[in-house]
């Protein structure tokens, strides 16, 4: 049996997990720093790095104890080495390298994006090639996953990430940070969806254009005009419900349009017929979007899967799992591996 320790510190979650090649998560811990960053309305990189250092070493010890494992029993140590907030990435990477060096175990440098899109293989039965939609606070991408080391970026956002667009919209409405998840709840209360869409017409950047890139910043500006023009004071409930629905509806329209192009592009670039797609990243928690995307995937005869939410947001198990996949293929990395704040995957031509 292969056992890998995974460490994730690239944003505001300090996370450690131990996973086996039999797809068993022996132990995992996540500490979210969200309460620390809340008062700043977003993640502050220097504060995030400081917090990772404060907690990570004891978390590693706790996870190993909880899994009843000695460090010698590990097959390898995998850590996120980018992309992300570099101060935090370095803390996790150095801890991982230290364990690898001490116990003479392979070190595996994991690209955070690769870990996200491989996670469904930990929880579901998924075979290469497949299409992945990664939607989180930091990323919005379509990727064709042909193998663990052969991924092609089909499209990405040219400005804001989708989760960021949700959070910023929520912020403009006065919702507490991170407000993205509230949008779905508010939209469910919308009494007259058609009226909401008519009252709050929002732009759909790049809609019906070639390719499958995204753009959300125009949408943000439009929302700003809608919510900041009324007089000061709390937003009226009906307005909040309508704006939330109009926003979410527009986002789904954009994603569906981009998805059609992504599926065509992925089919063209894939040697075998595509039968599966996955949605990963924190925004996959939004059921309205998930169901809309799933319906569209089905019309293209694609099975659509997503891992459980705790594995969709940043976590250590996805890093450990990606480590197991690399180890299985014989891919490991030197202890001189650098942290990479930017680490794009290959772009499809």
């Amino acid at each position, binding site marked *: 049996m292969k056992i890998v320790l995974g460490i994730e510190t690239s944003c505001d979650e300090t996370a450690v997990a131990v996973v086996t090649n039999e797809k068993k998560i022996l132990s995992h811990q996540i500490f979210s720093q969200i309460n620390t960053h809340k008062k*700043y*309305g977003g993640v*502050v990189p*220097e*504060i995030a*790095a*400081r917090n990772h*250092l*404060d907690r*990570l*070493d*004891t978390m*590693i*010890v706790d996870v*190993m104890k909880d899994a009843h494992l000695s*460090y010698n029993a590990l097959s390898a140590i995998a850590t996120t080495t980018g992309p992300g907030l*570099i*101060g935090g990435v*370095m*803390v*996790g*990477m*150095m*801890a991982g*390298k*230290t*364990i690898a*060096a*001490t*116990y*003479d175990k392979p070190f595996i440098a994991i690209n955070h994006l690769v870990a996200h899109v491989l996670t469904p293989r930990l929880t579901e039965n998924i075979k290469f090639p497949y299409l992945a939609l990664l939607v989180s606070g930091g990323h919005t991408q379509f990727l064709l996953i042909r193998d663990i080391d052969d991924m092609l970026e089909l499209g990405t956002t040219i400005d804001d990430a989708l989760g960021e667009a949700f959070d910023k919209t929520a*912020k*403009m*409405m*006065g*919702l*507490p940070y991170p407000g993205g998840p*509230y949008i779905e*709840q*508010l939209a469910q*209360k919308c009494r007259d969806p058609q009226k909401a869409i008519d009252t709050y017409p929002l732009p759909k950047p790049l809609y019906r254009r070639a390719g499958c890139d995204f753009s959300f910043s125009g949408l943000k500006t439009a929302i700003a005009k809608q*919510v*900041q023009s009324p007089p*000061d004071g*709390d*937003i009226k*409930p009906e307005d*909040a*419900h309508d704006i939330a629905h109009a926003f979410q509806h527009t986002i789904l329209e954009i994603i569906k349009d981009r998805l059609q192009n992504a599926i065509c592009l992925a089919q063209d670039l894939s040697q075998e017929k595509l039968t599966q797609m996955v949605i990963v990243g924190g925004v996959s928690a939004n059921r309205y979007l998930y169901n809309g995307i799933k319906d569209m995937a089905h019309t293209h005869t694609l099975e659509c899967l997503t891992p459980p939410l705790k594995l969709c947001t940043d976590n250590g198990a996805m890093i450990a799992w990606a480590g197991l996949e690399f180890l299985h293929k014989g891919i490991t990395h030197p*202890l*001189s*591996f*650098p*942290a990479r704040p930017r680490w794009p995957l290959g772009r499809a031509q």
Partner: protein
Amino acid sequence: MKNILAIETALEACGVSVATGDQCHTIFEPMKRGQTERLIPMVMEACEGVNITLKDVEAVCVTRGPGSFTGVRVGLSVARTLANIREIPLYGLTSFEALSLFMEGKSSYGIVLESKRTDVYFQAIVDGQAQEPCVTTYESLLETYPDLELIGNVAPLQFDQKALTVKMIEYVQSGQAEEGQISPYYCREADISASKKKYRTMSSDVLDSLL
């Protein structure tokens, strides 16, 4: 005598010493960045230099700042992880305490360290008493302490930085060092520039009524 590892990455360098009873192997490279790539290979090489492996290390000593924020964290992440997983003693020195090791026998001096900004990190030791460390300007500290001998990486009296980790090992060997869970000493809060944009805010009562 214990096998001791000393690490210094806070002061724009990557320095490592490993000592066994009778031998000490030191590797030192000045660098503004790149410690994340060099530190572990250097630690392993230093261990090999005294014919031990990292597993044989029985105590760790590290500088905990002030200095480069990233450098402080790189050294501490390695030192703390090693001490925790091996359950061995960890000793931490502020950068000021570490440099004081070069000033033995002197009772009054000041330590001035690069802050990568227009100011400096400073600590005065006056008649053997260490004053509160601070962030100040060079001009202002010269005004307050015109006659103080100054040592540091931006001071007139430079020090042999390569020897720093050797001094740290000797300090641990002397038995004066105090063991413990070592925290970083940044000497400065994180810079946060709050957004100037005004946003609505919502009370939790209003939020509840909406949901």
